[in-house]
């Protein structure tokens, strides 16, 4: 299946939809199609039902977190540099807001073709992290969208039963985000890693000291960052 023909077919079928081809430089050659949230359901229904397409199996749904980028900013700045001014770099640190992306891998059982990769992005990673749910189109997205809601924090509008899937209901953060910092107050099994245990206890007492503060997990971000690297072998 050629993605270009699919794109034109979809554009003809769903007037007003904005589709964008996203090239994949990898040898896998699985290029993807970015669709806009407003027409997502219509596009999905067309993909599922159009006789030439019949993508009836939505195999894989997953989220990707793209936090605001700073490193790429610097690259852009270097391109801008035409003189020898060094101060400009520091001034031009406008970070892009970042987004959460949801990827759908579609296959066709009837026509045995695929995959076609659909992508949708949220406007930002906080308040506007809303996307339309494709569960009404493909039931297989039900649990996977719940998982994305749980682990990434994308709110799927129109999902029949949007609850946390893997984390418990009282959990506040979204663990799969790149900037997620694990809280230090899990009940660790006492192992030889007593350093971790010591920090956990210390953290507990600190948390008890300033009970009303809500962002307990985030305070220790500095010490947490290197937990994985120094946790072992002690």
């Amino acid at each position, binding site marked *: 299946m050629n993605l270009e023909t699919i794109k034109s077919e979809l554009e003809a079928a769903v007037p007003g939809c904005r589709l964008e081809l996203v090239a*994949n*430089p*990898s*040898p*896998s050659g*699985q290029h*993807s199609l970015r669709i806009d949230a407003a027409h997502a359901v219509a596009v999905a229904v067309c993909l599922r039902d159009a006789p030439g397409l019949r993508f*009836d*199996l*939505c*195999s*894989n749904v*997953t989220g*990707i977190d793209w936090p605001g980028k700073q490193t790429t900013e610097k690259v852009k700045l270097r391109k801008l540099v035409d003189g020898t001014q060094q101060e400009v770099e520091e001034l031009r640190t406008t970070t892009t807001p970042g987004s959460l992306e949801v*990827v759908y*891998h579609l296959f066709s*059982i009837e026509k*045995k073709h695929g*995959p076609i*990769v659909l992508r949708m992005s949220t406007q930002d990673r906080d308040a506007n992290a809303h996307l339309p749910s494709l569960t009404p189109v*493909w*039931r*297989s*997205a*039900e*649990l*996977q969208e719940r*998982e994305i809601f749980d*682990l990434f924090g994308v709110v799927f509008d129109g999902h029949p039963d949007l609850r*946390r*899937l*893997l*984390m*418990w209901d009282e959990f506040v953060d979204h*663990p*799969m985000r790149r900037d*997620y910092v694990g809280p230090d107050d899990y009940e660790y099994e006492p192992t030889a890693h007593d350093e971790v245990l010591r920090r956990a206890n210390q953290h507990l007492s600190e948390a008890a000291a300033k009970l009303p503060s809500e962002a307990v997990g985030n305070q220790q971000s500095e010490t947490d960052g290197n937990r*994985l690297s120094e946790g072992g072998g002690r």
Partner: protein
Amino acid sequence: MITDASPAAQPELEPLSETSEEQLLEIAMGPQHPSTHGVFRMNVVLDGEHVVRLKPVFGYLHRNHEKIAESETYLGSMPYTDRLDYMCPITNNWAYALAVEKLAGIQVPERAEYLRVIVGELTRLQNHACLIGFLMQDMGSSGTPLMYAFREREKILDLFESLTGARMMCNYMRFGGCRVDMPAGWLEQAQNVVREFPRFLDEYENLLVSNEILMERTQGVGVLSKELAINAGMSGPMARASGVNYDIRKVDKYSIYERFAFRVPLGAHGDVYDRYMIRFLEMRESLKILNEAMRDIPAGPIVDPKMRIRGFRPKPGEAYGRIESPKGELGFYLISNGSLNPYRYRVRPPSLINLTVLEDLCIGQNVADVVAILGSVDIVLGEVDR
């Protein structure tokens, strides 16, 4: 009573809701329950013994495998994939290796492909045998079929041990091939196991297939329509039992599966009986593949010589690789940003997605059927919760 759950309509609760809410009994099946196949929980609302509502609760075994993998090297995630579906670690390895190979464009030598097929199909044999055993165990046959299955699985695990060094956590595949070649005499041993296996299947068939109690317990129970099966993304034996002709070995022709003559059995009813019979028949087909593969396996290298074990950095890009694991479509979705570890690593767990329809299958059935239905879905919690 089977509710005809079409994808659009929610399962109909009307007939049973004549009893008032107060008379309903809500029980938590799990997380400590002998037949939830691990720490899985179903909040079941019962009217007498009939299921009115069923809400699965996941996450008791959640360890955020994906997050861990994103901070590991590509190879470092390989042993972790063993622990996803711990009944069939080798196919997990395979799916992951396949995804990475797609991502980096690695070729796999001929011999390695044959080795992969052999161990993959052996995995399928032992998984299906055990699953049927577990299903019977759930239906109360005091473990006899399960023990027979374990007896055979033992032989296959012995093969795995002498090949890969571990019985279950094999960590066998490498990007571009396999880790070790088979030791001397392994092939004969494996051929012997494969030759003996039909005897066990006959035994199983005598014990189970025409058993009236079993037929009564399983036929017409937990019926999954073809439409719902497709729409809800069912895969593997679960989908094929509902008559969906979709076997990734045939569709994707990954590895060297197109070289083997094997057939894909399809069910007509989509009930529990079909689901376990499909697995029966698949075992016979797997034996055919194994026989052919063991006959034809060529000599040669087992791993792409260009692959380095350390410092593996695929070029930026993404890939979705999937295989037909014994449980269904096991996919890995990887995004590389050119660094040592994947930017995004996603497992498409067949067990979890096959559970999407659990409530639809169970509504209106008995408590005893819930157990059988759950058993026929074939889940491993290591994969469901990841």
